[in-house]
């Protein structure tokens, strides 16, 4: 009986090919929209979290200043704070101080303005940086504040092109500095800044020759293990409060940020956006369902006589109900399948356009298809029941 109904349904659809296609179009668009939105949204979420993870997930970033406000009046950090954290907080893999200043870098006839970062070798551990060539700083260089520098790839490309800059000298303000290495490229950060657009130097060199102070703008801490992050965060907060002699009733004048929380916040935003867009797209699926109901009602009216014949020669109500229900489900399922195909194309195209990875999500594909099919049942039921409840005498007399 099921197969017969299926064949009947396919025949009915074939008989009105154009009309069936236009009916199904609503479902196709709905399914394609839902899947495309969700797939691209997931890609965007993934790319956001990938980029932040590249900076190191087991990271705590310590900045001066309160949660709100600029914090410009609050004291910066000093080397003793770095030492304190290094020596007293358990379970940490590295502590990198950062002192930054924007400066013009000159090599040969070219000059380029970039961010100078003063730090230690922990910079590599904490920030997940690797060297493309050359070497890290030697202890002596760090201690004496020697004018050695490691270039980010953007700076290297701008000043030296394809040449090997190792051993060459660059001029920054009043001093010259020997290039000892080049960082491996990391590309754009989540916030759109070019992470490779920097020159790394020993902290002392930046303090003495560029800043003229011993301030440290921020400290990044890498924790050995993800489950030690919260503990480390608390320990650091207590340490710094002590060191800054903050009374109990005063708020922290610094912040200890957990990278995971930042990831959560950012991916949370894209996830909510994805859901919202998916929900809007689902509305168009619903509209498609109403289109199916409409055309099925027309079909029932057109075929009243046929229904009458079937009922007269022994079809039960459930047979007729089944026939029209299956027709509606077949229609919406065809729409679902075409929608899946269209969605894959659109997702690949859209993901490329937006520069996010294409993540095929089997679950959302199955879900959207099942949703489309059940829309067929939902909106096909009313017309099918109307057909099944027809009075055979009236139906036979219908012209």
């Amino acid at each position: 009986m099921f197969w017969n109904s299926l064949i009947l349904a396919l025949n009915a659809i074939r008989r009105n090919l154009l009309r069936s296609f236009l009916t199904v179009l609503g479902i196709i668009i709905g399914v394609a929209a839902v899947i495309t939105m969700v797939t691209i949204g997931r890609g965007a979420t993934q790319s956001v979290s990938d980029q932040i993870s590249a900076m190191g997930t087991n990271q705590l970033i310590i900045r001066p200043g309160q949660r709100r406000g600029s914090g410009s009046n609050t004291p910066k950090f000093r080397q003793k704070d770095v030492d304190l954290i290094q020596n007293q907080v358990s379970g940490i893999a590295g502590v990198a101080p950062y002192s930054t200043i924007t400066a013009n870098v000159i090599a040969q006839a070219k000059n380029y303005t970039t961010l100078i970062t003063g730090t230690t070798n922990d910079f590599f551990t904490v920030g997940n940086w690797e060297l493309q060539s050359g070497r890290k700083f030697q202890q002596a260089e760090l201690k004496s504040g020697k004018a050695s520098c490691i270039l980010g790839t953007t700076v290297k490309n701008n000043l030296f092109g394809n040449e090997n800059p190792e051993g060459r000298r660059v001029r920054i303000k009043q001093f010259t500095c020997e290039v000892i290495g080049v960082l491996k490229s990391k590309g754009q950060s989540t916030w759109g800044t070019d992470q490779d657009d920097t020159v790394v130097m020993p902290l002392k060199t930046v303090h003495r020759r560029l800043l003229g102070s011993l301030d440290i703008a921020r400290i990044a801490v890498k924790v050995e293990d993800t489950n030690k992050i919260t503990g480390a965060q608390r320990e650091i907060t207590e340490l710094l409060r002590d060191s800054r002699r903050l009374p109990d009733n005063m708020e922290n004048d610094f912040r200890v940020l957990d990278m995971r929380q930042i990831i959560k916040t950012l991916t949370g935003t894209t996830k909510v956006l994805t859901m919202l867009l998916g929900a809007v797209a689902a509305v168009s699926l619903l509209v498609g369902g109403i289109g199916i109901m409409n055309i099925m009602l027309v079909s029932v009216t057109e075929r009243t006589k046929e229904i009458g014949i079937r009922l007269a020669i022994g079809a039960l109500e459930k047979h007729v109900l089944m026939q029209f229900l299956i027709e509606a489900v077949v229609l919406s399922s065809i729409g679902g399948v075409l929608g899946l195909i269209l969605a894959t194309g659109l997702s690949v195209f859209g993901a490329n356009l937006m520069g996010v990875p294409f993540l095929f999500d089997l679950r959302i594909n199955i879900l959207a298809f099942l949703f489309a099919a059940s829309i067929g049942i939902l909106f096909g039921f009313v017309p099918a029941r109307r057909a099944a409840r027809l009075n055979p005498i009236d139906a036979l007399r219908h012209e």
Partner: protein
Amino acid sequence: MALIQFKNITKTYGTGDNAFPALKGLHLTIDEGEFLALMGPSGSGKSTTMNIAACLDTVTSGNYLFQNISVENLDTHQRTLLRRNFLGFIFQGFNLLPRSSALENVELPLIYRGDKIKERRSAAYEALEKVGLSDWRNHNPNELSGGQQQRVAIARAIVTNPKILLADEPTGNLDSQTSAEIMSLLTSLNQDSGVTIIMVTHEQEMADYASRVVHFLDGQIRT
């Protein structure tokens, strides 16, 4: 033996001022093996009688017995089963499904009865052979003449081996020569296979083929 009995049956369409009494106390007994013709002007109640006999319509009052079973006490589903197993229909307008071959049309009642594909194919073929159309089994109704279409409809009606064949003006759309062919086919079905036939007709010529003629007037049998 009485196959079906109408006992004091009334049927009223509509209610209140619009009420129209189609049957006013009908008494009729039809025996197995009869070939009955129902005649009368339109609105006299013969189509209503057919619909009640076909278990398509229900009575307002009275008692309709099919093989001594009171049909009023059956629900829609049971009436459908009764119709499916014991009754065959022939209509004035043939009422074949377009875009389905003759064989598929004949097969249809067996599909709903749930027969296996092999059995119903051969049963449909046999039925078409009985009406002399087995060579035309793969043609669609629009490729067949009116007489051929009606013969396909007859094959569809007899494929379930019904006890009763209900024919509603089976020759109404046909010329006289084709009508004669259809009537002799019905007659042979009645005499050779013993199928009881109840036929509504306007034409005396066709009624002459029947073994008994009943005349209707104003919802009652004219005596």
